[in-house]
């Protein structure tokens, strides 16, 4: 019996290969979208980690020689012999590679990003010589470099880098002295004083300012949000595909039951068949996702290159987390969709015939359920919005809102259509709207998917664009000086200050100290108030007079992080640990900074911390190159102590251009998936609609006209959906920017609107809907007359 039944069930696909293809494609697309986003996300994350581990030396303090000098072995030994836990590094270029010599016995753990002894014995690293590189680097390796050395490849090493023992590196680079020393986090008691042990060396503190790491985290958040949204769209499509497969075989299943196949058996067989097909679809989807990710990854890699200034692998690894999650989603989605359908088979009267009209009435209860669900979820979203806190609440809020909107969509559309139906005069248009309304239940899933896809795209585009705009503004604000100059001591500081007074349009100082205020750790920063701050710094809150008050020593500015953490805002007073109580006269946005900061006027700052000396200056000038030359000539400041800010800014901006490319590509993908969902639904309805259209045709409407009406219908529905998608998408973006980001990073991103982009998205969505409607409409227009006549011949 099993074989006979299975044969009958499966024969459906053999006879209708197109339906099989649609089913598999639907599942595959949903899986591909999800796993593609996941793949990019996990690959990017892994690459970040590798890059951070190998290159982000920001986590360790460094010791360098004053000026451009190198560090002698004797200085290193002297430091070690007085308790300094430091490890030497020598680095240089060799045949296009960046060769980094490390001292494995003293290097802080995990410094290379690789657990050394897992792959290569310390003994051979030290004695026979081993070099650690990325597999891609190995391919580009020239023949005689690293001759007689053991070449160890590891994917966690940043491409373009080669790690080797310092003794070997010194030899290869033909050097005797070190480039720098890394200072371990833990230092022993009673350590010597650096100035006494090695007066020519200085400690360079770990960089914590303008932490790009957090910016990249925000980029991840973008992708994660996109992943979640694409998941929602994907689930709708899986649901639609399964629903379609059941709908098409309702008759067969009924006949089989009438002929005595027990329900239990049939259920098991159908479940087995569906899950098997879902698995195939999902596997295709994972493969597809791999290609999507692989084609987008070069852009992600480029983003990372921008962030870290280093090569990151452009190839994709099959990481369990994304292919397994892709499979799981497809199978779970299929399972849930199928359970619902099996349930309806079990309850379906054995011989009830498929009357479309009855179908609409039967969905009356479904509709009530949808309305109830939408209301409940909307209420939940409202409660979360008011009382919720935490990242999870933010994401749940997003989920509630999305689902509520999706559930409410068919009801809203129904209202609108019935309004149109009532207000239409012509017979045809009256029929047209009524007919559209009747089709709504069959199309609602596809329309929901379209709604989510368009809303998700509007939301994510808004977020990314707002992010980019804010970031650019932030760069302008924080990196306004054209030239940054570092000095080493108080005398140089005074000399430079004087020189800048003479040669620069305006000079700024970078001077700060760690302290405590309102019971929180805070960085107190001195500002030399002038045109630059007044023009570039955007106050999130506070009067424009704030700058004057600050200049008079009456008030301070707080960054958003501090203000939020301390629960203080403009007008509140805060007591500094070192004494004075001051008023917060304004709050500034400080994106990507993990630290709470207070900004004081330079004079006030120096009155509290009289010993502080600025060793970093910013200069406003129209000709940074000339200024650079003057400073080198007059004060002997080495070129390496000066940074041309324009280049840094340019670099950072490139990062977000890349983010954009990826987002745009994903936009197109989601919309095509939604378009596909629509196509499937329309195809399903097409067969059911022949008997409904036959009388209209018989009454004198040509098949061409009917086809045209089908097209108009699809576009009209898509347009309405897009209209709803706009507020939904903006709400999503608002949640991402104002809630999720605040919860995740402690700062709120201002939201900007991009009407042109939305219009473009709409256009894409119309196009997708039109494309989806084309085929069914064409088919209808070409329906042979006798197929329509048959409707009258054998009444169904």
């Amino acid at each position, binding site marked *: *019996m099993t074989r*006979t*039944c299975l*044969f*009958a069930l499966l*024969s*459906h696909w*053999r*006879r*209708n290969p197109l339906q099989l293809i649609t089913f598999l494609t639907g599942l595959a697309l949903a899986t591909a979208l999800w796993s593609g986003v996941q793949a990019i996300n996990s690959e990017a994350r892994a690459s970040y980690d590798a890059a951070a581990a190998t290159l982000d030396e920001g986590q360790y303090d460094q010791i360098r020689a004053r000026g451009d000098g190198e560090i002698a072995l004797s200085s290193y030994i002297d430091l070690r012999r007085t308790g300094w836990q430091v490890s030497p590094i020598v680095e240089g270029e060799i045949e296009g590679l960046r060769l980094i010599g490390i001292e494995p016995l003293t290097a802080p753990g995990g410094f290379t990003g690789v657990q050394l002894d897992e792959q290569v014995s310390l003994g051979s690293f030290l004695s026979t010589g081993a070099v650690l590189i990325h597999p891609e680097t190995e391919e580009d390796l020239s023949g005689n470099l690293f001759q007689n050395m053991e070449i160890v490849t590891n994917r966690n090493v940043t491409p373009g880098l080669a790690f080797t023992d310092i003794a070997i590196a010194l030899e290869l680079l033909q050097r005797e002295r070190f480039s720098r020393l890394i200072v371990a986090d833990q230092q022993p008691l009673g350590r010597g004083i650096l100035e006494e042990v090695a007066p020519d060396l200085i400690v360079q503190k770990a960089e914590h300012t303008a932490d790009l790491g957090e910016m990249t985290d925000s980029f991840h958040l973008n992708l994660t949000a996109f992943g979640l949204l694409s998941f929602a769209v994907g689930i709708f499509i899986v649901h639609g595909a399964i629903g379609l497969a059941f709908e098409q075989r309702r*008759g*067969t299943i*009924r*006949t*089989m*039951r*009438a*002929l*005595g*196949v*027990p*329900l*239990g*058996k049939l259920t098991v067989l159908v479940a087995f068949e569906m899950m098997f097909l879902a698995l195939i679809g999902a596997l295709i989807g994972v493969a597809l996702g791999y290609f999507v990710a692989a084609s987008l990854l070069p852009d992600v890699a480029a983003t990372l290159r921008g962030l870290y200034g280093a090569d990151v692998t452009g190839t994709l690894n099959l990481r369990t987390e994304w292919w397994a999650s892709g499979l799981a989603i497809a199978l779970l989605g299929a399972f849930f969709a199928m359970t619902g359908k099996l349930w309806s088979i079990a309850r379906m*009267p*054995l*011989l009830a*015939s498929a009357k479309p009209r009855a179908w609409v009435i039967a969905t009356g209860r479904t509709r009530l359920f949808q309305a109830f669900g939408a209301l409940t979820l909307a209420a939940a979203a409202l409660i979360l919005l008011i009382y919720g806190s935490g990242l999870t609440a933010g994401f749940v809020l997003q989920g509630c809102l999305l689902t509520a909107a999706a559930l409410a969509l068919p009801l809203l559309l129904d209202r609108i259509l019935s309004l149109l139906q009532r207000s239409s005069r012509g017979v045809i248009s009256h029929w047209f709207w009524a007919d559209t309304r009747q089709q709504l239940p069959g199309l609602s899933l596809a329309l929901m998917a379209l709604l989510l896809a368009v809303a998700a795209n509007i939301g994510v585009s808004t977020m990314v664009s707002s992010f980019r705009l804010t970031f650019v503004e932030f760069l302008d604000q924080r990196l306004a000086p054209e030239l940054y100059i570092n000095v080493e001591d108080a005398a140089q500081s005074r000399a430079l200050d004087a020189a800048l007074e003479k040669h620069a349009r305006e000079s700024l100082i970078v001077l700060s100290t760690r302290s405590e205020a309102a019971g929180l750790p805070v960085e107190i920063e001195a500002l030399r108030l002038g045109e630059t701050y007044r023009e570039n710094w955007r106050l999130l809150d506070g009067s424009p007079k704030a700058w004057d008050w600050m200049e008079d020593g009456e008030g301070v500015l707080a960054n958003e992080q501090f203000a939020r953490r301390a629960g203080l805002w403009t007008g509140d007073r805060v007591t500094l640990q070192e004494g004075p109580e001051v008023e917060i006269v304004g709050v500034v946005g400080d994106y990507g900074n993990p630290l709470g900061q207070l900004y004081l006027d330079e004079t006030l700052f120096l009155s509290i911390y009289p010993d502080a000396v600025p060793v970093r200056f910013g200069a406003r000038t129209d000709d940074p190159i000339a200024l650079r030359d003057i400073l080198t000539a007059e004060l002997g400041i080495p070129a390496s102590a000066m940074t041309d800010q324009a280049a840094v800014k340019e670099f950072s901006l490139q990062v977000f251009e890349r983010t954009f490319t990826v987002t745009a590509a994903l936009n197109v993908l989601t919309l095509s998936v939604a378009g596909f969902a629509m196509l499937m639904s329309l195809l399903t309805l097409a067969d059911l609609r022949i008997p409904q259209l036959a009388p209209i045709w018989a009454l004198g409407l040509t098949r061409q006209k009917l086809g045209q009406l089908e097209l108009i219908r699809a576009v009209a529905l898509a347009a309405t959906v897009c209209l709803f998608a706009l507020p939904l998408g903006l709400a999503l973006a608002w949640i991402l920017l104002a809630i999720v980001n605040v919860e995740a990073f402690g700062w709120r991103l201002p939201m900007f609107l991009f009407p042109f982009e939305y219009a473009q998205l709409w256009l894409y969505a119309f196009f997708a809907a039109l494309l989806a409607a084309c085929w069914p409409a064409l088919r209808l227009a070409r329906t042979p007359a006798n197929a329509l006549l048959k409707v009258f011949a*054998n*009444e*169904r």
Partner: protein
Amino acid sequence: MRQIGTTLVFPLLETQSLLELTRIEKSFVGNEGKIPVLKGVSLSLAAAESVALTGESGSGKSTLLHIAGGLESADAGTVKLDDKDFSHLKEAERADLRRKKIGIVFQQFNLIPSINVAANIGFQARLNGEFDAAYIDHLAETLGLKAQLQSYPETLSGGQQQRVAIARSLAARPKIILADEPTGNLDETTAGVVLDQMLALVSETSAALLMVTHSSTVAARMQRKVHLSGGQLT
């Protein structure tokens, strides 16, 4: 009176009867509340007996047929087939009974569109594991379907499709055949031929035949005739 009468008329046949419907009640829920369709209908069929069930449109004859086949369950009353009470059987057991003992011919043919004619004819027999190729060949031969065995249902004419459905209902050698207007969708000439073929094949077996029809011509070909009206048999 009549209602009681029917059971009283054949009290002695009770043990030999194949199908026994007793005081069947069924109502449907419509817009104006509960509408009773069957108000205590009793009917019994003996082996090899053929009975025509006639009635107005909407009189509930199809419903009665479905209840007899276990496709629908009655609100009250019992259905016995081969001394087994349907009303007390679980869904799976009812399906089992239907598969092994009942052949059904619907008005709308209800063929499985994705398998060919041969597979459709043999479907129920195969479910039972009693596929008898020679018998099926005989059925196809008699019904004139030999040339269409490899075709798919959608390519057949209405008359041909109904012949396939008839062949399918007989192929599993059921004890009883329930037919719902099997010739209702066919033109008069074809209907006559199909009916002849069907009755000839049924008479080859000892199966009982309960046929819903509104045609008096068809009804006249049956051994017995019952009429459903106002929810009761006359």
